[in-house]
């Protein structure tokens, strides 16, 4: 077994050495996961809010389905997107397989249910409280959505972070649709899998530490923003 200090030394060397390969991998990881999360946020927040505000036949089924999809195994999501984007699949013409775009799509599939389902809960709670006042002000349900999302923003930051955590940690989906191509679609998690399979455990663990550090950085940033506005707005 490699000693833990070996992994930390490796991680430190990776960071301090500013290895260009590593920088590429880190940049691509962030690019893919942040894009997926941004898109999932843009779609998921209004979708969650709509589910919180409207009742229609099949509403319950949809909510349960969305909650269930939060547990969708990344490999299954990857496989579905693979079959979709494969040349033999319905969107094969686009030639997106084994590109970062395909990875964004796969992670979007994973993250969207999390953001939409958790946003629905948050918005629903706030809507209970705001409904009469906003109705009294003359707002339609459609016009309530931006208000509710904005006032629920502190909780929604956590929701988006949960989505980012899922996106940055998953490996099954990006491995299948990205192909782990060196310099093109290799991200932190797939690189870790590769190094593990090579038996280079210190390097794999070192990459893991770098990944953890990155996720921690993003979380710290969000935490600071959240705390500041919490202090400001009570």
């Amino acid at each position: 077994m490699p000693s833990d200090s070996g992994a930390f030394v490796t991680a430190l060397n990776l960071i301090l050495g500013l290895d260009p390969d590593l920088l590429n991998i880190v940049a691509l990881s962030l690019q893919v996961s942040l894009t997926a999360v941004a898109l999932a946020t843009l779609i998921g927040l209004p979708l969650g809010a709509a589910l919180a505000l409207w009742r229609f036949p099949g509403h319950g089924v949809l909510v349960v389905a969305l909650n269930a999809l939060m547990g969708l195994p990344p490999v299954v999501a990857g496989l579905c997107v693979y079959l979709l984007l494969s040349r033999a699949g319905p969107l094969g013409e686009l030639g997106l397989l084994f590109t970062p775009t395909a990875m964004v799509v796969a992670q979007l599939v994973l993250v969207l249910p999390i953001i939409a389902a958790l946003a629905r809960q948050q918005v629903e709670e706030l809507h209970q409280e705001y409904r009469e006042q906003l109705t009294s002000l003359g707002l339609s349900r459609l016009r309530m959505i931006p208000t509710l999302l904005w006032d629920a923003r502190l909780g929604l930051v956590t929701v988006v972070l949960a989505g980012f955590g899922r996106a940055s940690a998953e490996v099954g989906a990006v491995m299948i649709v990205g192909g782990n191509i060196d310099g093109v679609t290799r991200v932190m998690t797939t690189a870790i899998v590769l190094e593990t399979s090579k038996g280079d455990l210190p390097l794999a663990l070192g990459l893991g530490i770098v990944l953890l550090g990155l996720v921690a950085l993003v979380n710290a940033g969000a935490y600071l923003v959240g705390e500041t506005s919490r202090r400001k707005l009570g």
Partner: protein
Amino acid sequence: MNDMTTLSITETPALELHGVSFTHRGQRLLGPLDLRLTGCRRTLVMGPNGAGKSLLMRLAHGLLAPSAGRVDWQGRTPRQAMVFQRPVLLKRSALANLTYALAVNGTPRPERRARAREALERFGLAALEKRPARVLSGGEQQRLALARAWLLDPEVLFLDEPTSALDPAAIKAVEDAVQEFHCRGTRILMSSHDLHQARRLADEVLFLNAGRLIEHTDAATFFTAPASKEARAFIRGELVL
């Protein structure tokens, strides 16, 4: 505030309830009742807990749809606002809560801040404009809710037990505010179970008991010679069953 009364040039349309009732899970909670409210009077809705005061306010304001009957504004639907027992304020600063309401009712952006500040001033909240609305005291929150209603320039103002959770000083502030609305020509429909408050404010009284409208009379008549035995018992401070 005499200059303000000139603002309401057109007359506020009458509110008519025809056979309105409200049923929840098979249980009738209110009505059927008929009612007509006109002018710029201060109408106090009174009655014991569970009489249906809040329901009546919500039906009249349009927050709830009646299970039967209809709520009619004669001619046109007037500008309305409602102040709740527990004020619902947005998670923003006091000022932002007011500019928000102005944005919703279509006030042009450049005017919003000045008008919001004016309202804060009027309700004694100028020093608190940057404070998060949700950390204000109960009385301050209710005044902010009144300031918000003020900005909407309502022709009809609904107040649902607006003082029941407040201390005397805050109650005074709310009652003063109600008077200001009244002076501006706003019709007031306010629920309360506080007889003294009703005596101070009411032009007329709607007395409800167990979901039925028992009396609709001038305040003077109601407090001196109530027609029903329920109202007589209520005024004497007895338990109304």
